């Protein structure tokens, strides 16, 4: 039942579990954090199995640490493979970042320098992950608060990464906006440099304005400036499965569904414009 992801979805969050178990949430797919379900058994897996019966599923990881200079942890990959085999998701994704080095795990999505060395490490790790999982993965562009000196831009890095490994991209348009503001690049340049045929999924989210930087908090509605980046992305990418990723300060399901309707409308406008052109 590993069908293709399509349409518009939401991150499945605890306050709304009942609607996903019942199948009454008006979405095309759900996404969950993989690590929350890489467990032996119990209620969380039971809930996901029931929801999975009603919706296509995307597994979204936060701990693969694809940018670790000392490679991936095989115990992690084994557990992820077990979950993948059990749930047969349409998509398995993680982030272009690193979280672990040696025996230390930061539990945060830490930035990489966009160097040739880092590209080699990331591509080697992606090859290993895709081989172990027996499938293509998507990797999400991160939001970041530090930019290291590097040989290439983030979008050049992503483009070369997809070319070398065959992986796809999970384009987080909020992250593009946050990093663009934090590091002073133009989101339009970013989108122009992304191989849109590699984009398999889009994330929408909100952020907050800190004292010096925009902070990617996922606890706010999608703001107008992020909708603008989404509009530009859909104009270039066409119909891509899109979801809202709300991790904190979680509102009623109806409020998130209303936001998702905005995404549907923008995507339909982009499709109409392409037909007219």
């Amino acid at each position, binding site marked *: 039942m590993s069908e293709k992801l399509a349409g518009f979805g939401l991150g499945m969050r605890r306050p709304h579990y009942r609607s996903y178990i019942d199948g009454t949430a008006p979405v095309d797919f759900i996404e969950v954090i993989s690590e929350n379900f890489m467990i032996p*058994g119990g*209620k969380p897996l039971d809930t996901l199995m029931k929801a999975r019966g009603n919706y296509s599923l995307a597994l979204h990881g936060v*701990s693969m640490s694809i*940018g670790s200079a000392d490679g991936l942890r095989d115990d992690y990959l084994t557990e992820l493979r077990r979950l993948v085999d059990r749930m047969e998701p349409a998509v398995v994704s993680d982030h272009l970042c690193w979280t672990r*080095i040696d025996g*230390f795990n930061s*539990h*945060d999505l830490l930035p990489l320098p966009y160097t040739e060395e880092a590209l080699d490490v990331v591509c080697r790790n992606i090859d290993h992950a895709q081989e172990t999982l027996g499938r293509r993965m998507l990797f999400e562009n991160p939001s970041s*608060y530090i930019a290291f000196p590097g040989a290439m831009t983030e979008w050049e890095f992503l483009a070369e990464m997809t070319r070398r490994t065959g992986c796809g991209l999970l384009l987080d348009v909020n992250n593009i906006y946050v990093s663009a503001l934090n590091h002073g690049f133009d989101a339009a340049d970013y989108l122009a440099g992304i191989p849109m045929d590699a984009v398999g999924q889009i994330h929408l989210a909100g952020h907050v304005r800190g004292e010096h930087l925009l902070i990617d908090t996922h606890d706010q509605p999608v703001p107008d400036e992020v909708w603008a980046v989404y509009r530009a992305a859909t104009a270039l990418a066409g119909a891509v499965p899109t979801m809202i990723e709300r991790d904190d300060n979680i509102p009623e399901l109806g409020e998130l569904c209303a936001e998702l309707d905005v995404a549907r409308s923008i995507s339909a406008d982009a499709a109409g414009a392409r037909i007219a052109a």
Partner: protein
Amino acid sequence: MSLLALQRDFRDWLVTGDDRAAAALGGGPGTAVYQNNYRTALVSSLAETFQRLVLWLGDEAFETAAARYIDARPPSSWTLDAYGEHFTDFVAAMWPDDPEVGEIALIDWTVGEVFVGPDAEALQPEALAVADWETARIHAVPSLQVLPIRTNADAIWQALATEETPPGAELAEPGTALLVWRQGLEPVFRRAEAHECDMLAWSATGEGFAAICARLADTLGEEAAVTTAGTLLGRWLAEGVVAAVG
């Protein structure tokens, strides 16, 4: 700088908060964002795992304990849920004169482990009809854990979980223990006396039910041993503690 060196510098910054480590990353407000994210995520994870301990200690004391734990034990597992693995011993050492503190933490931790433990169907009592009691062994559900306790931490925990006023801390009878397991999808626990814990421990090491009754007879006498063992087996079946007999 190599990628490995950069990642180790970054780790040092997160773990130590040392300005020199931040400078190695270029400094600036971004380094502080990552430092804050790191510590906030760990404190939140501990507070989520040890919800009743937070209520017992209060926010300030809990956050002090969490901050010291984060300094002492940087996380190593890929799952944040594992981060509190040593927190029970840590708070027990911080409050040596208040043994209920470590035990409330232990119940929080164990209930969380049991919640996501391996699945198993509880044995239906009818299945006993075909058991060969000369050789039969009792197999408990895999989520079952036995926790020795010295205090009334269980009563305090239950009161906190149901938003009632908890009793004051008291010492329990020597030999008191808690059985923690999952009934269906919900963790449950109750007290158990020493001979019940002995029986479960003997079963776990592979002893048959007949042999367990014989060992129990050494302390209780034969008649009381048979009665006790039969009563407890019936209780275990009713409570969903047994996964198989055979």
